[in-house]
């Protein structure tokens, strides 16, 4: 399988990934470990929360998006990691049984000044449920190796 390098990323639509079904058990397990708020753990408390029903942790959805990006393209990309996330918005609750799809666009590409053997690829990712409602959108850069620059890096 070919490995994507910096030069392979063009501005515009990269692809649609998923669907990835999220079960109630997964939501409860993630919440118990990392985000034990009643709205993510307890149906009764969740029904009285602003989100009106059991919902997955926002960090769980982020982690699922990461996995979908990995399965979609990062796993085949000469990725060196990410310095951060510019902005992330949780737009609607993740519900048990949701089938999440992820639309990814490339919004910017530039060669790194500090590491000329690498480039920065900016992604915009939107996660939606089967009804087409956006659940989360984020913009985040990834550092990617440039073509034939492998030996320039440590």
């Amino acid at each position, binding site marked *: 399988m070919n490995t994507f390098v910096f030069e392979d990323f063009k501005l515009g639509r990269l692809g649609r990934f998923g669907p990835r079904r999220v079960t109630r058990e997964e939501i409860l397990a993630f919440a118990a*470990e990392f*985000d*034990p708020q009643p709205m993510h753990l307890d149906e009764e408390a969740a029904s009285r929360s602003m*989100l009106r029903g059991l919902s997955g942790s926002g960090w*769980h959805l*982020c982690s699922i998006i990461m*996995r979908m990006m990995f399965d979609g393209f990062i796993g085949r990309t000469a990725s060196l*990691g990410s310095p*951060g*996330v510019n902005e992330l918005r949780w737009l609607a609750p993740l519900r048990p049984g949701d089938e999440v799809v992820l639309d990814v666009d490339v919004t910017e590409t530039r060669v790194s000044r500090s590491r000329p053997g690498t480039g920065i690829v900016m992604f915009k990712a939107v996660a939606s449920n089967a009804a087409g409602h956006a659940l989360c959108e984020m913009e985040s850069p990834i550092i990617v190796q440039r073509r034939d620059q492998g030996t320039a890096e440590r």
Partner: protein
Amino acid sequence: MFFFEDITIGQRREVGSFTFTAEAIKKFAAQFDPQRFHLDEEEGRKSLFGGLAASGWHVGSACMKLLVVDGQRLAREAAARGEKVAAWGPSPGFRDLRWIAPVLAGDTIKFATEVVSLRASSSRPEWGVLEARNTGTNQRGEPVFSVLATAFVPRRNGGG
């Protein structure tokens, strides 16, 4: 936990620390972020990180865990004093998340939160909107994680 009216800009709170064992790093990565430098010590050493590194989403999730658990501790203490306890709402998102330095196997990260801004919610009068800078610092005092997070905080007496 506090009501909107109890909070002032600049309030800072240490929320606890989290040790990233190699086992926990690999378990999280296998599930959510199976890039080679999060799964294997040798691959981590060869990467920009210089060692087996935790997924950035693992670091963010650990920060969330400590914020929630510490908040629940404060809520229990307030309830024990007979005070009315505020139940915080969900977060609409965050900005300017930075994975400043790698979190490597064996690192212990201390997390803190500091209130940056406060405003009334225009659409929901019973809620206020709080922005906080949440940060993580390793055992050598080096900053490794920073995020400007937003949350809905209930107003005392329902904003009435």
